[in-house]
């Protein structure tokens, strides 16, 4: 017998092996349940949103449509609607609507909702969630017939083309997110124009030029920390700097714009730009780091200057990564609410932003505002707006992934 052998043999080895496998299985189960919890949370989130955005609606017409027209509602043409609106609305109200957008230029759907809103006066009595509507459809109809004899029950998708194209309204049934989407796009556009060149420039300087010493280490550390600063702090910064100190610039008064204060989409865009700047710098640095040194040496080897190396090789080979990172940073900006509240997004505005010095609202602001309303219809359109925001975010992220795959380089 070998006395030097301290390892378990045969039977005892098999036993110890079983113990090892058991431990491994337990850990595997723990990791899998972690993933499961994450998946369930995500599904629950999506379910809640979708559940709120579709469902049965019980509504009444305060005035019988038959008093306005003999044509069935769904067959009304644009011309008929125009005639009805012109004759039945007070001339003052008609002029006001015509002033917002010429009636002739409006679509049939637009006119139809005006007809319902102003003349027939659609009145929502009750709404149900999608789950209720599907599971208890018959009961809902019976209950409605008892409680509101005159009401009709319809399955409604709160997200609709009309919802996308309508501006804000005080009635949830006719409200839309056009103003908010345009506001969000302006915001993200301004943030990008501001943060992308500055962020890329800073990243190039830090990676390619800056010496590595205690000073640049401190700068680097600060950039990393700034990426984690709560967004509301950036809101305070935006309020102090862009809204107040730089008011002549952000209100556009030095460009001759007179009808605004500093609470413009320009101020908010710059605030968002500052908010995403650290993220863009870090992402751009990573992209620049991914360019192999051998490529830089190849350029230096044929007598390139540092600038030529950076401009012709480092940047072209990292630009896809820089753009991808920037898009992901912007998707964060798209969802931010707190800084916008502080720099003063309008909560009720039905005019599209027309330029950088406009008042504005944004999707998250709109969602936040709708969820605080008491009427359940507003909660339904908030759910609809959340769906649209999520689709926008997914589109941005998908663009980022496509960009990355399209320009991925092998060295």
């Amino acid at each position, binding site marked *: 017998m070998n006395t030097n052998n301290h390892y378990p043999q045969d039977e005892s080895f098999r036993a110890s092996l079983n113990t090892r496998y058991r431990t491994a299985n337990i850990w595997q189960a723990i990791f899998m349940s972690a993933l499961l919890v994450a998946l369930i949370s995500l599904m629950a989130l999506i379910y809640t949103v979708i559940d709120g955005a579709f469902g049965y609606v019980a509504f009444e017409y305060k005035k019988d449509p038959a008093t306005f027209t003999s044509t069935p509602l769904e067959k009304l043409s644009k011309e008929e609607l125009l005639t009805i609106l012109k004759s039945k609305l007070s001339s003052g109200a008609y002029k006001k609507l015509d002033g917002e957008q010429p009636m002739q230029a409006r679509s049939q759907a637009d006119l139809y909702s005006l007809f319902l809103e102003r003349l027939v006066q659609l009145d929502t009595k009750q709404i149900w969630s999608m789950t209720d509507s599907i599971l208890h459809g018959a009961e809902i109809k019976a209950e409605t017939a008892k409680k509101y004899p005159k009401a009709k029950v319809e399955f409604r998708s709160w997200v609709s083309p009309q919802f996308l194209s309508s501006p804000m309204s005080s009635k949830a049934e006719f409200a839309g997110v056009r103003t908010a989407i345009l506001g969000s796009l302006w915001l993200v556009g301004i943030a990008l124009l501001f943060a992308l060149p500055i962020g890329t420039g800073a990243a190039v300087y830090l990676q390619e030029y800056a010496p590595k010493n205690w000073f640049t280490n401190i700068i680097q550390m600060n950039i990393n920390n700034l990426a984690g600063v709560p967004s509301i702090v950036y809101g305070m910064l935006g309020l102090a700097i862009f809204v107040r100190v730089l008011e002549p610039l952000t209100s556009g008064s030095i460009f001759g714009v007179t009808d605004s204060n500093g609470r413009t989409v320009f101020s908010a865009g710059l605030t968002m730009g500052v908010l995403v700047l650290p993220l863009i710098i870090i992402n751009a640095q990573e992209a620049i780091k991914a360019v192999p040194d*051998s*490529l830089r040496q190849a350029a230096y*080897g*044929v007598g390139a*200057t540092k600038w030529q190396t950076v401009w012709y090789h480092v940047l072209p*080979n990292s630009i896809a990564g820089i753009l991808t990172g920037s898009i992901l940073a912007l998707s964060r900006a798209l969802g931010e609410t707190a800084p916008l509240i502080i720099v003063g997004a309008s909560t009720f505005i039905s005019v599209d932003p027309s330029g950088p010095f406009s008042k504005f609202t944004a999707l998250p602001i709109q969602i936040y505002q709708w969820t605080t309303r008491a009427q359940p219809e507003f909660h339904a359109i908030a759910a609809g707006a959340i769906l649209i925001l999520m689709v926008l975010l997914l589109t941005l992220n998908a663009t980022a992934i496509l960009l990355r795959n399209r320009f991925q380089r092998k*060295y």
Partner: protein
Amino acid sequence: MQNNQTPEYAIETKDLSIHYGSFVAVSNVNIKVERLKITAIIGPSGCGKSTLLRAFNRMNDFVPSSHVTGEILLHGQNLYGKNVDPVQVRRKIGMVFQKPNPFPKSIYENISWGAKINGFKGNMDDLVEQSLRSAALWDEVKDKLKKSAYELSGGQQQRLCIARTIAIQPDIILMDEPASALDPISTLRIEELMQELKKNYTIIIVTHNMQQAARVSDYTAMMMIDDKRSGGVIEFDDTKKIFTRPKDKRTEDYVTGRFG
């Protein structure tokens, strides 16, 4: 061959030491590299061969803490002198790296880029063809000049890198283990190419492969680290002498494979 105007040596070092911070990586190198010859630098890993090679075209400048004492003289001018710009040095002393590193561009652009940034005013098509011919690559790539350089095999890529270096018409070509990442056939082609190139260029090559040094080079510098871990040239002579009758015992041990 040589007339009185051309200096006898392409490049020479005088008491050259290369420091990284307080550490002396290479100390007191005094060698004279002859024109239109191939000079090999051999020695065990970590003895400073690459560091010495990179000192010749100031590639070590990119290592933040590095500095050089002593002189490297090209046409009598110190490459580390006050008024010498490193870009100017690299323009005159080209380099081929260990791992083929073509630009992620077309084959054509790989050659033309260096010429373009250095202000080449001649016919670019001719320059590209001529450089590729000199690197024995023209026949293989003449129909796909617009294709990415990454579609070439490793050996072809390395010859493209040589062509790229030739295109800027340097005086000297430095090669840092140019065949170590290649298969034997590609290696052979590079070695044959070097024999062609030495008609027009002075070549300094670092190699791990002693057979390669023996096959291709005219002169060999044997490097070794001393007890302070600084590398130094312990013997510099005709390649034949280094491999048959070395003066230094350590060189003999190394080239006969007794250690290293």
